[in-house]
């Protein structure tokens, strides 16, 4: 239903009921169904593996995705903390209630009705389970247009716990970035369920850099950074990571990572922040544009 403001400009209205439903569905979809880009990467890497258990592990992960899809069940028992990215067109008017409440209600319904695990505790020290996986982590961004895009990222903590951030010196340069990313992957070893996807944020401020690393995980893994410099750095880092020998599940092999996705942003004259957000093989995310 269009809404006309005081000046008579066109505004598109979206009711929160629609947002609740979409968030609910995306929570379930992201947890049940492996994305095509990951499936394709599995098939490619499987052919390149010849070391002991490596090929078998990739086969098991492919089979796991098939079972999850056919039986409509979560691929992993850690169905994550729900991280929600919302791009709100500036010509959209949300009606019927609070956007934040609508998102949390969608998460609540998705996790209860989709038989997903409730993994969120109320406080980092008190640690009482909230029993509906809320609250979600919500990032909003105002963009041009009259659309609303919602992306749900159920982030498991096996891989989240292996993530790190470092404020490098400008003098450390590209070599410093490479050393840091490789060290994070090495330290993680078998813990984050390799093969992993590595999200890297470079630049910005302390917190924005971490946000970039998370956002990098939303990009399909067969798409390189649009900037040729970072596209090349992604390839170089992937090759270096896949020479470490960690392999699928850490049992040795080539396929330690399926992709490295970098997002970069302007930064301060004195800084070179780098954040590495590790994600498991499934790198779950699902999106919908309203």
């Amino acid at each position, binding site marked *: 239903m269009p809404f006309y403001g005081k000046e008579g400009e066109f505004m598109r209205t979206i009711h929160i009921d629609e947002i609740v439903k979409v968030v609910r569905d995306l929570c379930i979809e992201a947890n049940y169904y492996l994305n095509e880009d990951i499936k394709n990467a599995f098939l490619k890497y499987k052919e390149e593996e010849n070391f002991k258990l490596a090929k078998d592990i990739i086969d098991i992960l492919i089979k796991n995705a098939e*079972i999850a899809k056919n039986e409509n069940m979560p691929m992993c028992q850690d169905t994550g903390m729900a991280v929600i990215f919302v791009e709100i067109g500036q010509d959209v008017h949300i009606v019927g209630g609070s956007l934040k409440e609508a998102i949390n209600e969608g998460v609540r319904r998705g996790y209860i009705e989709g038989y997903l695990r409730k993994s969120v505790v109320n406080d980092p020290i008190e640690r009482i389970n909230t029993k509906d996986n809320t609250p979600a982590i919500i990032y909003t961004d105002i963009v041009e247009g009259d659309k609303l895009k919602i992306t749900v990222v159920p982030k498991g903590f096996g891989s989240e716990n292996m993530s790190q951030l470092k404020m490098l010196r400008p003098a450390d340069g590209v070599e410093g970035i490479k050393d840091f990313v490789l060290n994070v992957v090495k330290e993680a070893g078998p813990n*984050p369920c390799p093969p992993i996807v590595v999200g890297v944020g470079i630049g910005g401020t302390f917190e924005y850099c971490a946000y970039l690393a998370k956002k990098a995980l939303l990009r399909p893994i067969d798409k390189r950074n649009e900037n040729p410099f970072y596209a090349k750095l992604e390839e170089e880092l992937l090759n270096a990571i896949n020479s470490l020998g960690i392999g699928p599940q850490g049992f040795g092999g080539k396929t330690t990572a399926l992709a490295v996705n970098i997002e970069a942003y302007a930064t301060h004259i004195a800084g070179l922040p780098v954040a590495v957000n590790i994600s498991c093989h499934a790198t779950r995310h699902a999106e919908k544009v309203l």
Partner: protein
Amino acid sequence: MIRITTPLTNDVIKSLKAGDSVLLTGYVYTARDAAHKRLVELIKEGKELPFDIKGQIIYYVGPTPAKEGQPIGSAGPTTSYRMDPYTPLLLEKGLKGMIGKGKRSKEVIDSIKKNSCIYFAAIGGAAALTAKCVKSSELIAYEDLGAEAIRRLYVEDLPLVVVVDSNGNNYYEIGQREYLSLCDK
């Protein structure tokens, strides 16, 4: 592929080597962070545990809720290092095996060797497939912990890899080293 059944005898444990792929059948107990904290507190207070851990296997898992008519939801391993602070005491008290994923501390590996125990990895992320191996699930303790409650599972042909054997050999180191030495040739 080696087939083993619980309870694991000392002979079976000694026969298994780091890197062996096995299919496990029998009962295992689930416990992760919060349940471990409670078990160790009980031991330190000299109180009885909700199940006898002697000779048993603990599987580090917090499953998704079961749908109607099914014993369990998705049920893959969680990362083991978070249980490291509690593990040596449980091994001293007779626990024989652990199923999880990822690295263990030096203290845990030393305790595995000293007490002739074993650490298996299940396939991290393959939780739907793993659920198919679970034939029954029974609540044993700590229902208030939800997914973290202690349950007794009967598993059939659960695919595992021996990571730390009773001699303290660590397959995460061995496998990677072997792979890299092949690459050098």
